[in-house]
């Protein structure tokens, strides 16, 4: 899910003051730390994602929003 899509879903749900921050790159090496990613999919990622993008496949974010009072 793209950041703008995430923010849009929050606004459509009724949330206000949507804030997205704390951006951290998430690469294949990070994904490999999680048991939920099989070694097979990690291998596929290394084979199919361009080397220059492998250290930033996704972005870790913090998303904050408020329910209007």
């Amino acid at each position: 899910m793209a950041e703008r899509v995430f923010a849009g879903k929050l606004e459509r749900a009724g949330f206000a003051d949507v804030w997205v921050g704390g951006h951290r790159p998430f690469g294949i090496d990070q994904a490999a730390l999680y048991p939920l990613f099989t070694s097979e999919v990690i291998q596929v990622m290394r084979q199919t994602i361009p080397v220059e993008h492998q250290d930033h496949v996704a972005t870790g974010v913090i998303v904050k929003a408020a329910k209007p009072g």
Partner: protein
Amino acid sequence: MARDLMFQQEIKETVQQAYAAIATGAGETVARRLYSDQELADVSPGAIAWALGVGNPVRYARLQPGQAVLDVGSGGGIDTILAAKRVDSQGRAIGLDVLEEMCERGRGHAAQAGVEGWTEFRQGEMEAIPLPDESVDVVISNGVLNLSARKSRALAEIFRVLRPGGRICMADLTVEGELPPEVANDQSAWAG
């Protein structure tokens, strides 16, 4: 429509099976990347071993003593426990997880951390949260919303259980652009 519902069900089952299949906690390396030494000292080794999140929402959530906080997709309970420490015994921390075995782990880890008196774990789905309307002050989650095949439904449920003026603080992964189809269509990538 029927095909979409079948696909949603397939994603849900894949994610649940992936989490249920984790035999032993493998989260220590993840935890050391996301939490400070002080935060790790506040939780039990078991909670650290089951840390499978992607961020540290409690650090950003500005929790206050006395608040009621819901951790959606609580897993082994590390964020629920850290939240419980911050809302203190005047408050209430609730972990919600779709797997009862994760809830059971969370209860054990909360007891080891000494917060069991105001911390509970409930089995349930984020798309049908088993809590009354307007019953919590803050909702946190950590790498969980992306696992839902019905994200808008999950957000509507979170909105429902929050009190007016309540807040969410979620850690998650975003992806700009397209992943290669070999990755996007891999079932373990859905769960991860």
